[in-house]
Protein backbone atom coordinates (compact mmCIF):
# COMPACT_ATOMS: atom_id res chain seq x y z
CA UNK A 1 0.00 0.00 0.00
CA UNK A 2 2.94 2.32 0.37
CA UNK A 3 4.69 2.09 -2.97
CA UNK A 4 1.88 3.77 -4.85
CA UNK A 5 4.31 5.55 -7.15
CA UNK A 6 5.53 2.35 -8.80
CA UNK A 7 2.25 1.11 -10.23
CA UNK A 8 1.70 2.24 -13.78
CA UNK A 9 -1.99 2.58 -14.25
CA UNK A 10 -3.47 3.54 -17.58
CA UNK A 11 -5.59 6.59 -16.80
CA UNK A 12 -7.04 6.88 -20.26
CA UNK A 13 -9.93 5.13 -21.97
CA UNK A 14 -8.58 2.00 -23.67
CA UNK A 15 -9.05 1.48 -27.40
CA UNK A 16 -11.70 -1.06 -28.42
CA UNK A 17 -9.06 -3.71 -29.10
CA UNK A 18 -7.23 -3.14 -25.84
CA UNK A 19 -10.53 -3.08 -23.94
CA UNK A 20 -11.61 -6.41 -25.44
CA UNK A 21 -8.20 -7.92 -24.72
CA UNK A 22 -8.41 -6.90 -21.07
CA UNK A 23 -11.89 -8.36 -20.75
CA UNK A 24 -10.78 -11.54 -22.52
CA UNK A 25 -8.15 -12.09 -19.85
CA UNK A 26 -10.82 -12.87 -17.29
CA UNK A 27 -11.98 -15.79 -19.44
CA UNK A 28 -8.40 -16.92 -19.75
CA UNK A 29 -7.98 -16.88 -15.96
CA UNK A 30 -11.15 -18.91 -15.57
CA UNK A 31 -10.02 -21.29 -18.32
CA UNK A 32 -6.83 -22.03 -16.39
CA UNK A 33 -8.97 -23.67 -13.74
CA UNK A 34 -10.77 -25.99 -16.15
CA UNK A 35 -8.44 -26.47 -19.10
CA UNK A 36 -7.40 -30.02 -18.26
CA UNK A 37 -11.02 -31.07 -17.96
CA UNK A 38 -12.06 -29.53 -21.26
CA UNK A 39 -8.95 -30.76 -23.04
CA UNK A 40 -9.67 -34.27 -21.79
CA UNK A 41 -13.27 -34.04 -22.97
CA UNK A 42 -12.11 -32.79 -26.36
CA UNK A 43 -9.90 -35.87 -26.65
CA UNK A 44 -12.36 -38.37 -25.32
CA UNK A 45 -15.42 -37.21 -27.22
CA UNK A 46 -14.15 -37.88 -30.76
CA UNK A 47 -12.75 -41.23 -29.63
CA UNK A 48 -16.10 -42.30 -28.23
CA UNK A 49 -17.97 -41.11 -31.33
CA UNK A 50 -15.55 -42.80 -33.66
CA UNK A 51 -15.63 -46.12 -31.85
CA UNK A 52 -19.38 -46.29 -31.26
CA UNK A 53 -21.00 -44.38 -34.11
CA UNK A 54 -18.21 -44.11 -36.67
CA UNK A 55 -17.11 -47.71 -36.66
CA UNK A 56 -20.13 -49.38 -35.03
CA UNK A 57 -22.96 -47.71 -36.96
CA UNK A 58 -20.67 -47.20 -39.92
CA UNK A 59 -20.38 -50.95 -40.51
CA UNK A 60 -24.07 -50.97 -41.50
CA UNK A 61 -23.78 -48.09 -43.92
CA UNK A 62 -22.92 -48.40 -47.57
CA UNK A 63 -20.37 -45.72 -48.52
CA UNK A 64 -22.12 -45.41 -51.86
CA UNK A 65 -25.03 -43.68 -50.07
CA UNK A 66 -22.55 -41.09 -48.76
CA UNK A 67 -21.03 -40.23 -52.09
CA UNK A 68 -18.31 -42.81 -51.60
CA UNK A 69 -17.29 -41.66 -48.13
CA UNK A 70 -16.80 -44.08 -45.25
CA UNK A 71 -19.28 -43.24 -42.50
CA UNK A 72 -16.51 -42.28 -40.08
CA UNK A 73 -15.09 -39.89 -42.68
CA UNK A 74 -18.57 -38.50 -43.26
CA UNK A 75 -19.25 -37.60 -39.63
CA UNK A 76 -15.75 -36.41 -38.69
CA UNK A 77 -16.07 -32.82 -40.02
CA UNK A 78 -19.50 -32.43 -38.41
CA UNK A 79 -18.07 -33.60 -35.11
CA UNK A 80 -15.42 -30.93 -35.23
CA UNK A 81 -18.02 -28.21 -35.70
CA UNK A 82 -20.41 -29.84 -33.21
CA UNK A 83 -17.78 -29.59 -30.52
CA UNK A 84 -17.65 -25.85 -31.21
CA UNK A 85 -21.42 -25.64 -30.74
CA UNK A 86 -21.31 -27.72 -27.55
CA UNK A 87 -18.68 -25.41 -26.10
CA UNK A 88 -20.87 -22.44 -26.85
CA UNK A 89 -23.55 -24.15 -24.80
CA UNK A 90 -21.10 -23.91 -21.90
CA UNK A 91 -19.55 -20.54 -22.59
CA UNK A 92 -22.36 -18.40 -23.96
CA UNK A 93 -25.33 -19.35 -21.80
CA UNK A 94 -24.79 -19.55 -18.07
CA UNK A 95 -21.65 -17.39 -17.85
CA UNK A 96 -23.45 -14.67 -19.80
CA UNK A 97 -26.62 -14.84 -17.73
CA UNK A 98 -24.57 -14.92 -14.54
CA UNK A 99 -22.45 -11.99 -15.67
CA UNK A 100 -25.27 -9.59 -14.89
CA UNK A 101 -26.29 -11.07 -11.55
CA UNK A 102 -25.48 -9.30 -8.32
CA UNK A 103 -24.14 -12.56 -6.87
CA UNK A 104 -20.71 -12.35 -8.37
CA UNK A 105 -21.57 -11.04 -11.81
CA UNK A 106 -18.35 -10.73 -13.76
CA UNK A 107 -19.85 -8.16 -16.11
CA UNK A 108 -20.82 -5.94 -13.21
CA UNK A 109 -17.30 -6.11 -11.83
CA UNK A 110 -15.79 -5.27 -15.22
CA UNK A 111 -18.27 -2.47 -15.70
CA UNK A 112 -16.88 -0.57 -12.70
CA UNK A 113 -13.49 -0.39 -14.44
CA UNK A 114 -12.42 1.45 -17.61
CA UNK A 115 -13.99 -1.37 -19.65
CA UNK A 116 -17.16 -0.46 -21.52
CA UNK A 117 -20.08 -2.81 -22.24
CA UNK A 118 -18.79 -3.29 -25.77
CA UNK A 119 -15.34 -4.32 -24.48
CA UNK A 120 -16.99 -6.78 -22.15
CA UNK A 121 -19.00 -8.28 -25.02
CA UNK A 122 -16.06 -8.44 -27.40
CA UNK A 123 -13.76 -9.95 -24.78
CA UNK A 124 -16.21 -12.72 -24.01
CA UNK A 125 -16.93 -13.37 -27.68
CA UNK A 126 -13.23 -13.51 -28.51
CA UNK A 127 -12.89 -16.29 -26.00
CA UNK A 128 -15.91 -18.24 -27.22
CA UNK A 129 -15.41 -17.70 -30.94
CA UNK A 130 -11.64 -17.72 -31.34
CA UNK A 131 -9.87 -19.10 -28.33
CA UNK A 132 -12.10 -22.09 -27.66
CA UNK A 133 -12.32 -23.48 -31.20
CA UNK A 134 -8.64 -22.78 -31.80
CA UNK A 135 -7.70 -24.83 -28.76
CA UNK A 136 -10.36 -27.47 -28.26
CA UNK A 137 -11.43 -28.07 -31.86
CA UNK A 138 -7.78 -28.38 -32.76
CA UNK A 139 -7.50 -31.22 -30.28
CA UNK A 140 -10.52 -32.86 -31.89
CA UNK A 141 -9.00 -32.47 -35.35
CA UNK A 142 -5.77 -34.09 -34.17
CA UNK A 143 -7.49 -36.97 -32.41
CA UNK A 144 -9.64 -37.69 -35.46
CA UNK A 145 -6.53 -37.86 -37.61
CA UNK A 146 -5.61 -41.08 -35.79
CA UNK A 147 -8.75 -42.68 -37.14
CA UNK A 148 -7.66 -42.03 -40.70
CA UNK A 149 -10.78 -40.06 -41.56
CA UNK A 150 -9.17 -37.35 -43.69
CA UNK A 151 -8.71 -37.68 -47.40
CA UNK A 152 -7.55 -34.14 -48.04
CA UNK A 153 -4.36 -32.29 -47.22
CA UNK A 154 -6.49 -29.31 -46.20
CA UNK A 155 -8.21 -31.09 -43.32
CA UNK A 156 -6.89 -28.58 -40.76
CA UNK A 157 -9.07 -25.93 -42.41
CA UNK A 158 -11.99 -27.61 -40.64
CA UNK A 159 -10.90 -25.53 -37.65
CA UNK A 160 -11.67 -22.39 -39.62
CA UNK A 161 -15.10 -23.81 -40.37
CA UNK A 162 -15.56 -24.42 -36.64
CA UNK A 163 -14.56 -20.82 -35.88
CA UNK A 164 -17.07 -19.55 -38.45
CA UNK A 165 -19.80 -21.75 -36.99
CA UNK A 166 -19.04 -20.37 -33.53
CA UNK A 167 -18.96 -16.81 -34.80
CA UNK A 168 -22.38 -17.16 -36.36
CA UNK A 169 -23.99 -18.67 -33.28
CA UNK A 170 -22.17 -17.16 -30.29
CA UNK A 171 -23.50 -13.58 -30.49
CA UNK A 172 -27.07 -14.86 -30.78
CA UNK A 173 -26.66 -17.04 -27.72
CA UNK A 174 -25.14 -14.06 -25.95
CA UNK A 175 -28.07 -11.93 -27.02
CA UNK A 176 -30.53 -14.52 -25.79
CA UNK A 177 -28.82 -15.21 -22.46
CA UNK A 178 -28.54 -11.45 -21.88
CA UNK A 179 -32.24 -10.94 -22.54
CA UNK A 180 -33.43 -13.57 -20.09
CA UNK A 181 -34.31 -12.36 -16.61
CA UNK A 182 -35.26 -15.67 -15.01
CA UNK A 183 -32.78 -18.54 -14.90
CA UNK A 184 -35.61 -21.05 -15.28
CA UNK A 185 -35.74 -19.94 -18.91
CA UNK A 186 -32.09 -20.70 -19.54
CA UNK A 187 -32.87 -24.28 -20.47
CA UNK A 188 -34.98 -22.96 -23.32
CA UNK A 189 -31.77 -21.97 -25.04
CA UNK A 190 -30.62 -25.57 -24.95
CA UNK A 191 -34.00 -26.95 -25.91
CA UNK A 192 -34.73 -24.56 -28.75
CA UNK A 193 -31.29 -23.63 -30.02
CA UNK A 194 -28.35 -25.83 -29.06
CA UNK A 195 -30.17 -29.19 -29.28
CA UNK A 196 -32.04 -28.75 -32.57
CA UNK A 197 -29.00 -27.20 -34.19
CA UNK A 198 -26.94 -30.23 -33.17
CA UNK A 199 -29.57 -32.61 -34.54
CA UNK A 200 -30.70 -30.93 -37.74
CA UNK A 201 -27.45 -30.02 -39.36
CA UNK A 202 -26.42 -32.98 -41.43
CA UNK A 203 -23.75 -34.09 -39.01
CA UNK A 204 -24.72 -37.76 -38.75
CA UNK A 205 -26.61 -38.20 -42.02
CA UNK A 206 -26.92 -36.18 -45.22
CA UNK A 207 -29.21 -33.24 -44.61
CA UNK A 208 -31.23 -33.96 -47.74
CA UNK A 209 -32.48 -37.14 -46.03
CA UNK A 210 -34.51 -34.91 -43.70
CA UNK A 211 -38.24 -34.60 -44.36
CA UNK A 212 -38.95 -31.62 -46.61
CA UNK A 213 -40.71 -29.53 -43.97
CA UNK A 214 -37.55 -29.65 -41.81
CA UNK A 215 -35.28 -28.54 -44.64
CA UNK A 216 -35.60 -24.83 -43.79
CA UNK A 217 -34.28 -25.62 -40.32
CA UNK A 218 -31.25 -27.15 -41.94
CA UNK A 219 -30.67 -24.16 -44.19
CA UNK A 220 -30.75 -21.65 -41.37
CA UNK A 221 -28.59 -23.76 -39.05
CA UNK A 222 -25.05 -22.35 -38.83
CA UNK A 223 -23.83 -25.81 -37.96
CA UNK A 224 -25.01 -27.17 -41.31
CA UNK A 225 -23.14 -24.44 -43.20
CA UNK A 226 -20.09 -25.00 -41.03
CA UNK A 227 -20.23 -28.76 -41.49
CA UNK A 228 -20.53 -28.42 -45.26
CA UNK A 229 -17.40 -26.28 -45.26
CA UNK A 230 -15.56 -28.59 -42.88
CA UNK A 231 -16.43 -31.61 -45.00
CA UNK A 232 -15.09 -29.86 -48.06
CA UNK A 233 -11.85 -29.39 -46.13
CA UNK A 234 -11.47 -32.90 -44.69
CA UNK A 235 -12.92 -35.02 -47.50
CA UNK A 236 -12.54 -32.72 -50.49
CA UNK A 237 -16.21 -33.08 -51.45
CA UNK A 238 -18.12 -30.21 -53.00
CA UNK A 239 -20.33 -28.48 -50.41
CA UNK A 240 -24.06 -27.98 -50.97
CA UNK A 241 -23.51 -24.36 -51.99
CA UNK A 242 -20.42 -22.62 -53.30
CA UNK A 243 -18.02 -22.25 -50.33
CA UNK A 244 -18.25 -18.49 -50.50
CA UNK A 245 -22.04 -18.66 -50.09
CA UNK A 246 -21.68 -20.72 -46.92
CA UNK A 247 -19.05 -18.35 -45.61
CA UNK A 248 -21.12 -15.29 -46.51
CA UNK A 249 -24.14 -16.68 -44.67
CA UNK A 250 -22.12 -17.42 -41.52
CA UNK A 251 -20.45 -14.00 -41.58
CA UNK A 252 -23.78 -12.28 -42.08
CA UNK A 253 -25.31 -14.15 -39.16
CA UNK A 254 -22.27 -13.26 -37.05
CA UNK A 255 -22.43 -9.56 -37.82
CA UNK A 256 -26.20 -9.33 -37.29
CA UNK A 257 -25.86 -11.25 -34.02
CA UNK A 258 -23.08 -8.98 -32.85
CA UNK A 259 -25.26 -5.90 -33.36
CA UNK A 260 -28.13 -7.56 -31.51
CA UNK A 261 -25.90 -8.62 -28.62
CA UNK A 262 -24.32 -5.18 -28.44
CA UNK A 263 -27.71 -3.56 -28.10
CA UNK A 264 -28.74 -5.75 -25.18
CA UNK A 265 -25.50 -5.62 -23.24
CA UNK A 266 -25.41 -1.83 -23.53
CA UNK A 267 -28.93 -1.63 -22.22
CA UNK A 268 -28.29 -4.06 -19.39
CA UNK A 269 -25.04 -2.51 -18.22
CA UNK A 270 -26.34 1.05 -18.13
CA UNK A 271 -28.41 1.29 -15.02
Amino acid at each position, binding site marked *: *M*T*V*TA*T*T*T*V*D*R*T*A*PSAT*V*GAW*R*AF*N*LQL*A*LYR*HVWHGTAFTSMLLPILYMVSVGIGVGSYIDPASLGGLEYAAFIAPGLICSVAVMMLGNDMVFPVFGGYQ*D*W*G*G*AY*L*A*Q*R*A*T*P*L*RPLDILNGHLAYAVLFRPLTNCTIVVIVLAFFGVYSSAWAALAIVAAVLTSAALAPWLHFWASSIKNDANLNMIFRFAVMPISLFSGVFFPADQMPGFLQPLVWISPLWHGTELARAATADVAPALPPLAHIAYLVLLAVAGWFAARRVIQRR*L*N*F
Partner: protein
Amino acid sequence: MPHDNEMLVRASDLRKSYGEHEAVRGVDFEILRGEAFGFLGANGAGKSTTMRMIGCVSQPTEGTLEVFGRDPRTEGAAIRARLGVVPQDNTLDGMLTVFENLVVYAGYFGIRKREARAKAAELLDFVQLTARAKDQVNELSGGMQRRLAIARSLINDPDLVILDEPTTGLDPQARHLVWERLFQLKHRGVSILLTTHYMDEAEQLCDRLVVMDEGRVIAAGSPRELIDTHVTKEVVELRFGTAHTAELAELALTLKGVGAQIEPLPDKILVYTDDADDTAAALEAREIRPTSTLARRASLEDVFLRLTGRALVEDEA
Protein backbone atom coordinates in the same frame (compact mmCIF):
# COMPACT_ATOMS: atom_id res chain seq x y z
CA MET B 1 -9.18 16.86 6.34
CA PRO B 2 -8.97 18.22 2.81
CA HIS B 3 -5.41 18.96 1.62
CA ASP B 4 -6.54 21.62 -0.76
CA ASN B 5 -9.79 22.56 -2.32
CA GLU B 6 -9.56 20.40 -5.40
CA MET B 7 -13.05 19.22 -6.15
CA LEU B 8 -13.37 15.53 -6.97
CA VAL B 9 -17.11 15.34 -7.44
CA ARG B 10 -19.64 18.05 -8.01
CA ALA B 11 -23.34 17.33 -8.37
CA SER B 12 -26.09 19.81 -8.80
CA ASP B 13 -29.76 19.04 -9.02
CA LEU B 14 -28.80 15.46 -9.86
CA ARG B 15 -31.76 13.24 -10.69
CA LYS B 16 -32.36 9.65 -11.67
CA SER B 17 -35.64 8.07 -12.65
CA TYR B 18 -36.47 4.44 -13.31
CA GLY B 19 -39.60 4.63 -15.41
CA GLU B 20 -42.14 6.54 -13.35
CA HIS B 21 -40.17 6.13 -10.16
CA GLU B 22 -37.79 8.91 -9.23
CA ALA B 23 -35.01 7.29 -7.18
CA VAL B 24 -32.89 10.44 -6.83
CA ARG B 25 -34.80 13.70 -6.79
CA GLY B 26 -32.37 16.56 -7.23
CA VAL B 27 -29.37 16.33 -4.93
CA ASP B 28 -26.46 18.75 -4.61
CA PHE B 29 -23.10 17.99 -3.07
CA GLU B 30 -19.39 18.51 -3.53
CA ILE B 31 -16.62 16.15 -2.52
CA LEU B 32 -13.10 17.50 -2.02
CA ARG B 33 -9.78 15.73 -2.31
CA GLY B 34 -8.61 14.09 0.90
CA GLU B 35 -12.06 14.06 2.36
CA ALA B 36 -14.09 11.16 3.74
CA PHE B 37 -17.59 11.90 2.58
CA GLY B 38 -20.65 9.92 3.60
CA PHE B 39 -24.16 9.27 2.37
CA LEU B 40 -26.36 8.27 5.27
CA GLY B 41 -29.83 7.00 4.60
CA ALA B 42 -32.38 4.25 5.12
CA ASN B 43 -33.11 1.44 2.64
CA GLY B 44 -34.21 2.79 -0.71
CA ALA B 45 -33.05 6.35 0.01
CA GLY B 46 -31.18 6.44 -3.29
CA LYS B 47 -27.63 5.97 -2.01
CA SER B 48 -26.60 3.20 -4.40
CA THR B 49 -28.26 4.97 -7.30
CA THR B 50 -26.18 8.06 -6.56
CA MET B 51 -23.00 5.97 -6.21
CA ARG B 52 -23.66 4.32 -9.57
CA MET B 53 -23.97 7.70 -11.23
CA ILE B 54 -20.70 8.88 -9.68
CA GLY B 55 -19.14 5.55 -10.65
CA CYS B 56 -20.16 6.26 -14.28
CA VAL B 57 -22.16 3.09 -14.80
CA SER B 58 -25.49 4.87 -14.68
CA GLN B 59 -26.46 7.98 -16.58
CA PRO B 60 -28.16 10.79 -14.71
CA THR B 61 -31.65 11.52 -15.96
CA GLU B 62 -31.23 15.22 -15.23
CA GLY B 63 -28.91 17.68 -13.55
CA THR B 64 -25.17 18.09 -13.75
CA LEU B 65 -22.49 15.79 -12.47
CA GLU B 66 -18.75 16.23 -12.72
CA VAL B 67 -16.20 13.70 -11.55
CA PHE B 68 -12.55 14.83 -11.55
CA GLY B 69 -13.81 17.81 -13.51
CA ARG B 70 -14.97 15.56 -16.34
CA ASP B 71 -18.34 14.66 -17.73
CA PRO B 72 -19.40 11.05 -16.95
CA ARG B 73 -21.62 11.02 -20.03
CA THR B 74 -18.69 11.30 -22.42
CA GLU B 75 -15.63 10.39 -20.39
CA GLY B 76 -16.87 7.51 -18.29
CA ALA B 77 -14.03 5.11 -19.04
CA ALA B 78 -11.30 7.64 -18.24
CA ILE B 79 -13.07 8.59 -15.01
CA ARG B 80 -13.49 4.97 -13.97
CA ALA B 81 -9.76 4.46 -14.53
CA ARG B 82 -9.21 6.75 -11.53
CA LEU B 83 -11.95 5.37 -9.30
CA GLY B 84 -11.96 2.46 -6.89
CA VAL B 85 -15.36 0.89 -6.36
CA VAL B 86 -16.66 -1.45 -3.68
CA PRO B 87 -20.18 -2.22 -4.87
CA GLN B 88 -22.97 -3.09 -2.47
CA ASP B 89 -22.78 -6.65 -3.82
CA ASN B 90 -19.14 -7.68 -3.94
CA THR B 91 -19.16 -8.96 -7.54
CA LEU B 92 -16.05 -11.01 -6.80
CA ASP B 93 -15.39 -14.01 -8.99
CA GLY B 94 -16.16 -17.03 -6.85
CA MET B 95 -14.41 -19.47 -9.17
CA LEU B 96 -11.09 -17.65 -9.07
CA THR B 97 -8.70 -17.55 -6.15
CA VAL B 98 -8.34 -14.54 -3.91
CA PHE B 99 -5.08 -13.62 -5.59
CA GLU B 100 -6.40 -14.12 -9.11
CA ASN B 101 -9.34 -11.87 -8.40
CA LEU B 102 -6.94 -9.03 -7.75
CA VAL B 103 -4.59 -9.74 -10.64
CA VAL B 104 -7.39 -10.11 -13.19
CA TYR B 105 -8.99 -6.91 -11.95
CA ALA B 106 -5.66 -5.11 -12.20
CA GLY B 107 -5.59 -6.15 -15.86
CA TYR B 108 -8.77 -4.18 -16.50
CA PHE B 109 -6.77 -1.07 -15.64
CA GLY B 110 -3.92 -2.00 -17.93
CA ILE B 111 -1.61 -2.84 -15.04
CA ARG B 112 1.05 -5.28 -16.16
CA LYS B 113 1.22 -8.79 -14.74
CA ARG B 114 4.38 -8.31 -12.70
CA GLU B 115 3.21 -5.10 -11.14
CA ALA B 116 -0.24 -6.53 -10.63
CA ARG B 117 1.16 -9.44 -8.66
CA ALA B 118 3.27 -7.20 -6.47
CA LYS B 119 0.37 -4.86 -5.89
CA ALA B 120 -2.01 -7.74 -5.16
CA ALA B 121 0.35 -9.18 -2.56
CA GLU B 122 0.70 -5.80 -0.92
CA LEU B 123 -3.06 -5.25 -0.80
CA LEU B 124 -3.75 -8.73 0.57
CA ASP B 125 -1.37 -7.89 3.33
CA PHE B 126 -3.19 -4.63 3.93
CA VAL B 127 -6.55 -6.38 4.38
CA GLN B 128 -4.98 -9.31 6.22
CA LEU B 129 -5.87 -11.98 3.70
CA THR B 130 -2.37 -13.10 2.73
CA ALA B 131 -2.91 -16.51 4.25
CA ARG B 132 -5.97 -17.03 2.05
CA ALA B 133 -4.37 -15.90 -1.22
CA LYS B 134 -4.63 -19.30 -2.89
CA ASP B 135 -8.15 -20.12 -1.73
CA GLN B 136 -11.18 -19.85 -3.95
CA VAL B 137 -13.27 -16.82 -3.11
CA ASN B 138 -16.32 -19.05 -2.59
CA GLU B 139 -14.63 -20.46 0.51
CA LEU B 140 -14.25 -17.07 2.23
CA SER B 141 -16.54 -15.71 4.91
CA GLY B 142 -18.66 -12.64 4.19
CA GLY B 143 -16.30 -10.38 6.08
CA MET B 144 -13.28 -11.70 4.21
CA GLN B 145 -15.02 -11.21 0.88
CA ARG B 146 -15.77 -7.64 1.87
CA ARG B 147 -12.13 -7.04 2.72
CA LEU B 148 -11.12 -8.56 -0.59
CA ALA B 149 -13.52 -6.25 -2.41
CA ILE B 150 -11.91 -3.33 -0.60
CA ALA B 151 -8.43 -4.53 -1.56
CA ARG B 152 -9.60 -4.89 -5.15
CA SER B 153 -10.89 -1.32 -5.21
CA LEU B 154 -7.41 -0.06 -4.35
CA ILE B 155 -5.57 -1.92 -7.10
CA ASN B 156 -5.33 1.12 -9.39
CA ASP B 157 -4.29 3.63 -6.70
CA PRO B 158 -7.60 5.41 -7.13
CA ASP B 159 -8.05 9.11 -6.57
CA LEU B 160 -11.40 8.34 -4.97
CA VAL B 161 -12.68 5.13 -3.41
CA ILE B 162 -16.43 4.60 -3.45
CA LEU B 163 -17.69 2.13 -0.85
CA ASP B 164 -21.37 1.20 -0.93
CA GLU B 165 -22.26 -0.03 2.55
CA PRO B 166 -18.83 -1.43 3.38
CA THR B 167 -19.89 -3.14 6.59
CA THR B 168 -23.51 -4.14 6.14
CA GLY B 169 -24.02 -7.75 7.13
CA LEU B 170 -20.71 -8.08 8.96
CA ASP B 171 -20.38 -9.10 12.59
CA PRO B 172 -19.06 -6.45 15.01
CA GLN B 173 -15.53 -7.77 14.92
CA ALA B 174 -15.38 -7.80 11.14
CA ARG B 175 -16.88 -4.31 11.05
CA HIS B 176 -14.20 -2.98 13.32
CA LEU B 177 -11.48 -4.46 11.17
CA VAL B 178 -12.93 -2.80 8.08
CA TRP B 179 -13.28 0.50 9.92
CA GLU B 180 -9.71 0.33 11.05
CA ARG B 181 -8.51 -0.25 7.47
CA LEU B 182 -10.64 2.61 6.16
CA PHE B 183 -9.22 4.79 8.86
CA GLN B 184 -5.72 3.97 7.69
CA LEU B 185 -6.64 4.79 4.11
CA LYS B 186 -8.03 8.08 5.23
CA HIS B 187 -4.84 8.90 7.05
CA ARG B 188 -2.86 8.18 3.93
CA GLY B 189 -4.86 10.88 2.26
CA VAL B 190 -7.06 8.63 0.12
CA SER B 191 -10.37 10.31 -0.62
CA ILE B 192 -13.27 8.18 0.47
CA LEU B 193 -16.93 8.21 -0.43
CA LEU B 194 -19.09 5.81 1.49
CA THR B 195 -22.73 5.03 2.04
CA THR B 196 -24.06 3.53 5.20
CA HIS B 197 -27.11 3.18 7.31
CA TYR B 198 -25.06 2.89 10.44
CA MET B 199 -24.79 6.24 12.13
CA ASP B 200 -21.83 5.14 14.24
CA GLU B 201 -20.00 4.29 11.04
CA ALA B 202 -20.75 7.70 9.59
CA GLU B 203 -19.77 9.44 12.82
CA GLN B 204 -16.48 7.61 13.02
CA LEU B 205 -15.35 7.74 9.43
CA CYS B 206 -16.85 10.77 7.76
CA ASP B 207 -15.51 14.30 7.76
CA ARG B 208 -18.69 15.44 6.10
CA LEU B 209 -21.87 13.74 5.16
CA VAL B 210 -25.27 14.20 3.70
CA VAL B 211 -28.39 12.57 5.05
CA MET B 212 -30.55 11.19 2.27
CA ASP B 213 -34.19 10.32 2.47
CA GLU B 214 -36.48 9.28 -0.36
CA GLY B 215 -34.12 10.54 -3.01
CA ARG B 216 -33.41 13.92 -1.42
CA VAL B 217 -30.67 15.38 0.73
CA ILE B 218 -32.35 16.47 3.93
CA ALA B 219 -29.27 17.64 5.81
CA ALA B 220 -25.56 18.16 5.22
CA GLY B 221 -22.50 18.91 7.30
CA SER B 222 -19.95 17.33 9.58
CA PRO B 223 -21.33 14.81 12.09
CA ARG B 224 -20.77 17.36 14.87
CA GLU B 225 -22.47 20.16 12.94
CA LEU B 226 -25.46 17.99 12.16
CA ILE B 227 -25.89 17.03 15.78
CA ASP B 228 -25.43 20.61 16.98
CA THR B 229 -27.85 21.98 14.43
CA HIS B 230 -30.62 19.47 14.65
CA VAL B 231 -30.64 18.06 18.14
CA THR B 232 -29.70 18.98 21.69
CA LYS B 233 -26.50 17.85 23.38
CA GLU B 234 -28.06 15.03 25.32
CA VAL B 235 -30.89 12.59 25.08
CA VAL B 236 -32.77 10.83 27.86
CA GLU B 237 -34.49 7.59 26.90
CA LEU B 238 -37.48 6.72 29.03
CA ARG B 239 -39.20 3.37 29.11
CA PHE B 240 -42.46 2.73 30.89
CA GLY B 241 -42.80 -1.00 31.47
CA THR B 242 -44.73 -2.53 28.62
CA ALA B 243 -46.38 0.73 27.56
CA HIS B 244 -46.54 0.95 23.78
CA THR B 245 -47.15 3.35 20.92
CA ALA B 246 -50.50 4.89 21.84
CA GLU B 247 -49.92 4.89 25.58
CA LEU B 248 -46.48 6.37 25.10
CA ALA B 249 -47.87 9.12 22.87
CA GLU B 250 -50.28 9.97 25.63
CA LEU B 251 -47.58 9.86 28.30
CA ALA B 252 -45.44 12.12 26.14
CA LEU B 253 -48.03 14.86 26.53
CA THR B 254 -47.49 14.90 30.29
CA LEU B 255 -43.76 15.41 29.74
CA LYS B 256 -43.99 18.83 28.10
CA GLY B 257 -41.26 21.08 29.40
CA VAL B 258 -38.92 18.51 30.94
CA GLY B 259 -36.69 18.88 27.89
CA ALA B 260 -36.35 20.87 24.69
CA GLN B 261 -38.20 18.27 22.61
CA ILE B 262 -40.18 15.14 23.33
CA GLU B 263 -40.22 12.31 20.79
CA PRO B 264 -42.46 9.29 21.49
CA LEU B 265 -41.33 6.12 19.74
CA PRO B 266 -43.06 2.74 19.61
CA ASP B 267 -41.13 1.39 22.60
CA LYS B 268 -39.74 4.43 24.41
CA ILE B 269 -39.87 8.18 24.72
CA LEU B 270 -36.88 10.32 23.83
CA VAL B 271 -36.38 13.59 25.66
CA TYR B 272 -33.94 15.94 23.92
CA THR B 273 -32.28 18.13 26.48
CA ASP B 274 -29.23 20.28 27.04
CA ASP B 275 -28.79 18.88 30.51
CA ALA B 276 -29.84 15.37 31.44
CA ASP B 277 -29.64 16.12 35.17
CA ASP B 278 -32.10 18.96 34.85
CA THR B 279 -34.45 16.65 32.98
CA ALA B 280 -34.15 13.96 35.67
CA ALA B 281 -34.92 16.55 38.30
CA ALA B 282 -37.92 17.85 36.37
CA LEU B 283 -39.28 14.30 36.05
CA GLU B 284 -38.82 13.74 39.76
CA ALA B 285 -40.63 17.00 40.53
CA ARG B 286 -43.61 15.83 38.46
CA GLU B 287 -43.46 12.44 40.12
CA ILE B 288 -43.07 10.73 36.77
CA ARG B 289 -41.17 7.50 37.35
CA PRO B 290 -40.17 5.56 34.23
CA THR B 291 -39.17 1.92 34.65
CA SER B 292 -35.86 2.77 33.07
CA THR B 293 -34.00 5.99 32.32
CA LEU B 294 -30.94 6.21 30.11
CA ALA B 295 -29.05 9.44 29.52
CA ARG B 296 -26.64 9.62 26.57
CA ARG B 297 -25.07 12.03 24.13
CA ALA B 298 -27.09 12.83 21.07
CA SER B 299 -26.01 10.98 17.90
CA LEU B 300 -26.64 11.07 14.18
CA GLU B 301 -29.38 8.53 14.77
CA ASP B 302 -31.23 11.24 16.63
CA VAL B 303 -30.62 13.70 13.82
CA PHE B 304 -32.19 11.27 11.38
CA LEU B 305 -35.09 10.64 13.72
CA ARG B 306 -35.70 14.35 14.21
CA LEU B 307 -35.58 15.00 10.49
CA THR B 308 -37.68 12.12 9.27
CA GLY B 309 -39.67 10.96 12.28
CA ARG B 310 -38.35 7.49 11.57
CA ALA B 311 -35.53 5.38 12.94
CA LEU B 312 -32.60 4.91 10.55
CA VAL B 313 -32.14 1.21 11.01
CA GLU B 314 -35.51 -0.28 11.67
CA ASP B 315 -35.35 -2.98 14.31
CA GLU B 316 -32.77 -5.19 12.80
CA ALA B 317 -34.10 -8.70 12.95
